[in-house]
C-alpha cells in the first residue's frame, strides 16, 4: 500500500549583511553571506540586499515582512539590525555582530576592507558557520520556523 507523504517546500530564511564599506568586517559580511547562500544552505536561504531594502524594494520588503531573518553586522553599530527592525516592522530572529564573534573565537579581523586573502578564510568560515547554525535553529522550529 502506498504511503502518502506530504512534500513541503524547504523553509526559507533571509540573510541580511550590512555590507559596510568602511571596515574589513563589512566586507566579511558579504563573503560569509554569499558562502552560506551559494554553498552551505542554498535551499534554505536568500540574501536581502540592504540598500534595495532601504530603497523600498518590494521583493526585499515583502520577504522580510513574511519570513524570518538573520542580520549580519560588521560592528556594534548594528546598522543591519536597526534598519531591519525599523523598516521590516519586526526584530530579526538572530543578530550576528562580527567583531564580537571574532573576539569570542580569538580570530583576527581581516586586514583590509578592499579584499580578503587566504588567511581570512578562517574568519569567513567561522561567520558562515555561525549563520548556518542559526538558519538550522530557525528551520527546525516546529511551527512557522521559516515558511
Amino acid at each position, binding site marked *: 500500500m502506498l504511503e502518502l507523504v506530504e512534500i513541503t517546500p524547504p523553509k526559507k530564511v533571509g540573510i541580511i*549583511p*550590512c*555590507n*559596510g*564599506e*568602511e*571596515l574589513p568586517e*563589512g566586507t566579511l559580511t*558579504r*563573503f560569509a*553571506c*554569499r558562502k552560506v547562500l551559494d554553498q552551505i544552505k542554498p535551499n534554505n536561504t536568500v*540574501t536581502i*540586499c*540592504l*540598500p*534595495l531594502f*532601504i*530603497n523600498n*524594494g518590494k521583493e526585499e520588503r515583502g520577504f522580510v515582512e513574511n519570513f524570518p531573518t538573520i542580520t549580519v553586522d*560588521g560592528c556594534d*553599530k548594528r*546598522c*543591519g539590525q*536597526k*534598519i531591519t527592525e525599523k523598516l521590516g516592522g519586526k526584530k530579526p530572529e538572530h543578530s550576528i555582530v562580527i567583531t564580537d564573534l571574532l573576539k569570542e573565537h580569538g580570530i583576527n579581523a581581516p586586514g583590509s*576592507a*578592499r579584499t580578503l586573502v587566504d588567511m581570512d578564510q578562517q574568519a569567513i568560515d567561522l561567520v558562515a558557520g555561525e549563520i548556518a547554525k542559526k538558519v538550522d535553529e530557525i528551520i527546525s522550529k516546529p511551527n512557522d520556523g521559516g515558511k
Partner: protein
Amino acid sequence: MANKTTVVLPCSGIGKPYGEIGRQSTYTLMEDLCPGKVTTTCLAKLMIGDPDAVELVKNNPVITLDGCAQDCARKNVESAGKKPDRAVRVINTFKHHRDLKPTGILDLGEPGRKLVEILASDLALEIDCPAKKEGSADA
C-alpha cells in the same frame, strides 16, 4: 570639488556583480588613485543617521555608484537629505566596454577587475586627481 574630500558611496549590492564593481572602484580611488582626496562611509551607517556619516556627507561633495537602475545609493543618499553631486550607474561603464563581463558576484575575474580600473580612472579624472590612463597624456 577642489580642497574638499570627495565622498564616494557605492551601493554594494550583493545580488549582482556591478555592486561589487562599484565597491572596488571606491577602494581603488581611495587607496591607489586619489589617496587623501577620496573617502567613503558605510551607506547603512548613513541611513541609520549616524552623526559622523551624516556630517561627512553633508559637508563634502558626494558621488554615488549604483550597480543597477534601481539607483539605491543615489536614492538612499537623497532620502538622507543630500543630492549627490554625481550619480553614476556602473552598467554605463560596461556599455562602453562590452567585452569586460565580470565572471562572478564577489570574485569579479580579470574582465571585472579591468572594468573596476576603468571606472576608477574615469572618476579620478573628474575628482581632479588624474590617474595615468593608457594612451592619454598625463594630466
